[in-house]
């Protein structure tokens, strides 16, 4: 009665999908950084927010961004890296959408 293979399917499916989504997004971030466009997300300020960027930290972040932007890559290489980054993000969202599509029975009829 107990369908052990179902547990394996769940474990494998979640492992595969998490690995694919996380890898693609991480790779996209890395390529973005390589292309000299380091994403700096300034935390929003509101009551109760834990991460609030102090001026000192903001300056430090800006310095890190400048340092990273000064990469040894040429303009063409940077362009390629940027395209790669965008490709990763697109693939990542496609993977998520495909996963959602798979579990909705209404879309298969």
């Amino acid at each position, binding site marked *: *009665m*107990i*369908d052990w293979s*179902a*547990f394996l*399917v*769940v*474990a494998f*499916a*979640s*492992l595969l*999908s*998490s*690995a694919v*989504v*996380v*890898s693609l*997004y*991480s*790779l996209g*971030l*890395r390529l*973005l*950084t390589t292309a000299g466009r*380091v*994403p*700096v*997300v*300034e*935390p*929003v300020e*509101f*009551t*109760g*927010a*834990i*991460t*609030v960027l102090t001026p000192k930290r903001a300056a430090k*972040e800006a310095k*890190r*961004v400048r*340092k*990273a932007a000064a990469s040894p890559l040429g303009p063409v290489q940077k362009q390629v890296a940027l395209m790669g980054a965008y490709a990763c993000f697109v693939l990542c*969202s496609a993977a*998520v959408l495909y*996963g*959602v599509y*798979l*579990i*909705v*029975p*209404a879309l298969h009829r």
Partner: protein
Amino acid sequence: MDFTLIVALVIALALIFDFTNGFHDTANAMATPIATGAMRPKVAVGLAAVLNLIGAFLSTEVAKTISGGIIKEGDAGVQITPEIIFAGLIGAIVWNLITWLRGLPSSSSHALFGGLIGATIIGVGSQAVAYDVVLAKVILPALIAPLTVGIVAFLATKLAYSITRRDSGKADGRGGFRYAQIFSSSLVALAHGTNDAQKTMGVITLTLIASGMQDVGTGPQLWVITTCALAIAIGTYTGGWRIILTMGRGLTEIKPAQGFAAETSTAATILASSHLGFALSTTQVASGSVIGSGLGRRGSTVRWGMAGQIGLGWVLTLPAAAIMGAFAAGLALIGPMGIVLDLVIGSLVVALLFRRSRLNRVTHDTLHDIDDAGRVVKIRKTPRKASRSDRKKVAL
């Protein structure tokens, strides 16, 4: 007691249960992006509510597990009555409130199953419970899912960190994971709708089947799906305001990369489980992935005592709620007076619950469950500096 009145009562009670479920669990999805500043609280809470609503419509496998699986209702088994389901719900709600007030980690889903099973054993007889289905679709997933999601989250965190690692000391761009968290936490909210809203749908469908208003073996009707989806969405939205108010109390520190990995694993596991009809506790899965992803960071160790406490709370929930459900069913068997007594106790409990929810001072809820899970993993401060000095030593 009027026959249709009891059905209406059960449906109302089930919807209240659904509301509190959404109310509790907003934090599972949205606490992290709010804390890291990825999303404004108003946006996050509204998005979670909408996605829960959508999620409830996506799949009905879990609802079928409850309405057609756990309790035998057909000709082969014994006929279950709405009174018994009523008693089970009262048991589940009472146990939920007790754990909430006493600050015990608990799972509202398991309280629901426990209450139903306990009430059925007393009210109908133990032969009416399909133990094999309970084992295969409730108990085993409860044991296996937190473990597998922990492993998945551990590996995903390792992946995220190793892919973005830049040893030259240059910016690694990990702040960009904050954007990703907007999407991963939205997926968790969607997954929550596909699993938790289903549980109430299952209960209402079971009631309709038991009272002969619906055919045996059929899935939930559209109006049932719609009302349950609305109840959980409104609950999620209402619960969010309380979370925002308690946010200043501080959450376990979760880095954007880690949070993204944890949320992706949580969403993937819940969605896959919903698809196969496993009725999971979303809180347990979220806790498992927070612990797993914490272990995936450098310099982390487990506080086993705390992990044990959480585990014990989880194990206790089902049998304890079963005892409550059995007690309520015992009262209900007396006749109309017993049901009135159950109702009085039940509404007293619900009144208490709403009174407490109106207070902003929260003693214990899901927010703390996840928070506790985060504290299970101890992470050494600034492990990177330590490793860099180690490297220097080697170079010298």
